Each structure stands twice: as structure tokens, then as C-alpha cells.
């Protein structure tokens, strides 16, 4: 048994332990803390699986936005804890659920152990056409050249989720501000932190975005970091979220997918297929899409965490 395998086994046991505890613990708040820790360990798993792009996404999502979202929700729902705890399923249902879960696990384990060898892979195909895209990172090439449609739909799904969240607002506050819980004291340590960190965080976010063309990184990871920084400034009470009726906000939200679609359909004329890029223009067009999607993603991800509008803007 090699050292690396020993590390992997330890990590797997660790993540299983924290997952089991997250599921089993009585208190919801404790469960959320467990889940945040679980996200961190998941990042280590991605690194051990040598998938740095995914690790970066998980680190950015799990470290920031997911934690803010779930911890905030758990804090608001704390009062319901006592009533919910009284509802427990009967022993029969729980046993059946356990049997079902074990069955699913066993079935999947058998599948894992019988995966075809050698594994099918699209890596050679992706590598063969990498030069035509002008992008150095094969994952970015897949996201924006070979399977650009997926990425467009993903951006639209994020937007749709945001519209879904917004649509939960009361009629009277429609178009108002989402109200993120903020620190009452805008001069405390948190405000200090929120003044110091975001400038550096923005540089890191843009750096991660920028190197995405050639190394692991990219717009999703960069946008997540930027969104988290924005939420920090708001959470520390140094700024307010804009009302969702603002024109600039809505234009920026729609601009990304729109530019993406326009470039996609222009490809129909210039290169003969939707999302085909004309020869020699692949890299500039990919960059244009990334730049247009960036503000959309930053705003959409941050506003998803902020939730439905809850009050009208102060006049």
C-alpha cells in the first residue's frame, strides 16, 4: 500500500464520517456547520482526484456562498426547531429508508467496481482540437467551444433560479431590495474586515477568471469569489443591495446570455453552425463571451444568496 493510497483512504473515511454526522445530528444548525466542513473536505477529494478546475469551483462555492446561504437560513429557522423535532418518522419508515439507502449504495458500488477498463475518454478528442480554439485549458475549451450550448443553458438556469427567488416576494415589495442580514454595527471588526479584504479578493477573483483560458480557473470560479466579496461588503453594513427594479441591474443580468446567444447565432452565418466560431476568431469570441457572462454571474449568484425582495428602497 502506497503512502498516497493511505492518504486517500484516510480522506475517504473522514468525509464519510462528517457526511454521516451531518445527516444524523439532531440540531439543524450543527448539521449546517457539518455540511460546510463537508464542502471543504470535498475540495480535498477533487484535488486528490487531480481535477483542479472542479476543486477550484468547489472551494469558491463551498467556502463562501453555500455557507452564507445555509447558515443564514438555519439562523432564521431556529425558532421552528422545537416544533419540527417532534415530528419523527416511525421506526418502520426509518428502517425502510435505511434498507433503500443501503440497496442504492450497494448497487452503485457494484457499478463502480465494474466500470469498463480501459475507461472511455474524450480527452484525446479534446486535445486534438485544442489548438483551433486558441485556449490552453481543455476544460475551458469544452465549456465555451465544444459544448458551448451547455454553458449558455447553465447561465440561463442560474438566471431562472434568480427569477424564481424574486417571484416569491410579496406584491407590495416587488421591485424592492432583498434584505440580507447585516451587522448592526458598521464600525466594528467585521466592517474593518470588509474594508480590507474585498480589494484583494477582487484581484484574486479577476486573476482566477483571467488564468482560466490557459490554466485551471475561469469565469464561474472568479464570479463566485467576486459575488462573495460583494456579499461581505453588504453583510458588514457598508453598502445596500440595489432594488431589483433597477435598469442597470436587469440589463447586466440579461447581457451575458444575450451576448452569448448573439455570438452563437452569428456563427450560423459566418461559420455555418450555431456556436461555431469562424477560423482565427475563436479566442477573441470566447473571451468576449466570458467578459459578458462575468457580471451576469456575479450579480446572479450574489442575489440568489440575498433572497427575495423584502422591503422597498428608502426614498
Amino acid at each position, binding site marked *: 500500500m502506497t503512502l498516497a493510497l493511505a492518504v486517500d483512504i484516510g480522506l475517504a473515511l473522514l468525509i464519510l464520517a462528517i457526511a454521516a454526522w451531518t445527516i444524523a445530528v439532531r440540531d439543524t444548525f450543527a448539521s449546517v456547520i457539518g455540511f460546510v466542513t463537508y464542502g471543504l473536505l470535498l475540495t480535498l477529494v477533487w484535488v486528490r482526484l487531480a481535477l483542479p478546475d472542479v476543486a477550484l469551483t468547489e472551494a469558491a462555492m463551498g467556502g463562501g456562498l453555500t455557507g452564507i446561504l445555509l447558515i443564514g437560513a438555519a439562523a432564521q429557522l431556529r425558532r421552528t426547531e422545537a416544533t419540527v423535532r417532534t415530528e419523527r418518522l416511525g421506526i418502520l419508515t426509518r428502517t425502510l429508508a435505511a434498507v433503500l439507502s443501503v440497496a442504492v449504495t450497494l448497487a452503485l458500488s457494484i457499478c463502480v467496481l465494474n466500470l469498463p477498463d480501459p475507461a472511455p475518454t474524450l480527452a484525446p478528442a479534446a486535445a486534438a482540437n485544442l489548438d483551433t480554439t486558441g485556449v490552453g485549458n481543455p476544460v475551458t475549451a469544452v465549456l465555451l467551444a465544444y459544448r458551448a450550448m451547455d454553458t449558455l443553458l447553465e447561465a440561463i438556469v442560474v438566471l431562472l433560479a434568480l427569477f424564481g427567488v424574486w417571484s416569491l416576494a410579496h406584491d407590495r415589495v416587488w421591485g424592492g431590495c432583498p434584505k440580507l442580514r447585516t*451587522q*448592526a*454595527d458598521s*464600525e*466594528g*471588526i*467585521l466592517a*474593518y*474586515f470588509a474594508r*480590507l*479584504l474585498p480589494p*484583494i479578493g477582487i484581484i*484574486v477573483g479577476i486573476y482566477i477568471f483571467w488564468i482560466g483560458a490557459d490554466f485551471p480557473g475561469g469565469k464561474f470560479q472568479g464570479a463566485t469569489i467576486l459575488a462573495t466579496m460583494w456579499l461581505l461588503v453588504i453583510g458588514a453594513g457598508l453598502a445596500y443591495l440595489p432594488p431589483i427594479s433597477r435598469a442597470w441591474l436587469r440589463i447586466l443580468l440579461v447581457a451575458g446570455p444575450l451576448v452569448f446567444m448573439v455570438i452563437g447565432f452569428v456563427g450560423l452565418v459566418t461559420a455555418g453552425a450555431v456556436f461555431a466560431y469562424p477560423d482565427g476568431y475563436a479566442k477573441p469570441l470566447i473571451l468576449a463571451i466570458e467578459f459578458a457572462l462575468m457580471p451576469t454571474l456575479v450579480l446572479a449568484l450574489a442575489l440568489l444568496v440575498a433572497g427575495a425582495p423584502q422591503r422597498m428602497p428608502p426614498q
Partner: protein
Amino acid sequence: MKFALDIFTIFAVMAGAFFFLAGTVGLLRFPDPLTRLHALTKADNLGLGLVVLGLLPQTDWPLDTIKLVAIWLFALLAGATVGQLMACAARRGGVNAVELTPSPTGGRSGWGRPKGSEASDLSCPHPNPAPLGDDLLGSTASHREPPK
């Protein structure tokens, strides 16, 4: 030279690992949240700091080296902020802290506040801190700006 740098790496990383050990032992063995917080911040600052220091000779100048130093600086900033915020939270809600420490004021944001009665005082020591709050926040007091 390479050999000397490798020796340096080994010693610094081992020292860092020792501080993680110490932090974990402290987190598990210390009796109340504030002392546990003390142990935690040592592991944060020194453990990660020494690991970063040890890895510096093994990385490429300049970008990776700068990133490593930045990681340590981020950890320091996070540790300092979290340390203060957690101390506030532990003081307000920590049963153990209340048991082990006498209440100096008993008034607003005092130590003796029993768990669950935090509704009336929700902000961290600012702007009307208990005596300990002043000590905790002394270093940042100079950064305060006049209220708008």
C-alpha cells in the same frame, strides 16, 4: 544550498505540523470556548504560517511564492477577524464561558448573561463595550471613523 533549503523545509513544516497538533489538543482539552479559541488561532497563524514558510524554498519565484505568502496573510486576517467575532459569540451564548468567568458588569453585553436572553443585545461589543470588549478591540480602535 539545495540541501540546506530542504533541511529548512523539513524543520519548518514539522514545526507547523506541531502547531496543528497543539491546536487540536487545545481544542479538545481546554475547558471553555475562549481558551479553545486561543488554541485555534495558534494553529491558524503559526501552523499554517510555518508550513507556508517551509514550502517557500520549494516553489517557483515569483508568482507561486507571492501566492503562498498571500495565503498566509489571508489566513492571518481571517484568524484575527474570526477570533474576535467568535469571542463575542462565545461570550454571549457560551454556557461554559458564563460558568467559568465572573460577571464584571452584569449590564449590557455582560458576561453573566444566561443563554437564550441575547435578544436585547445583539451587536458585538461596539459601541458600548464591557471592560473586556475594550481590551479585545483596542487594536482596531484607531481605525474607527466617526459615525455618518
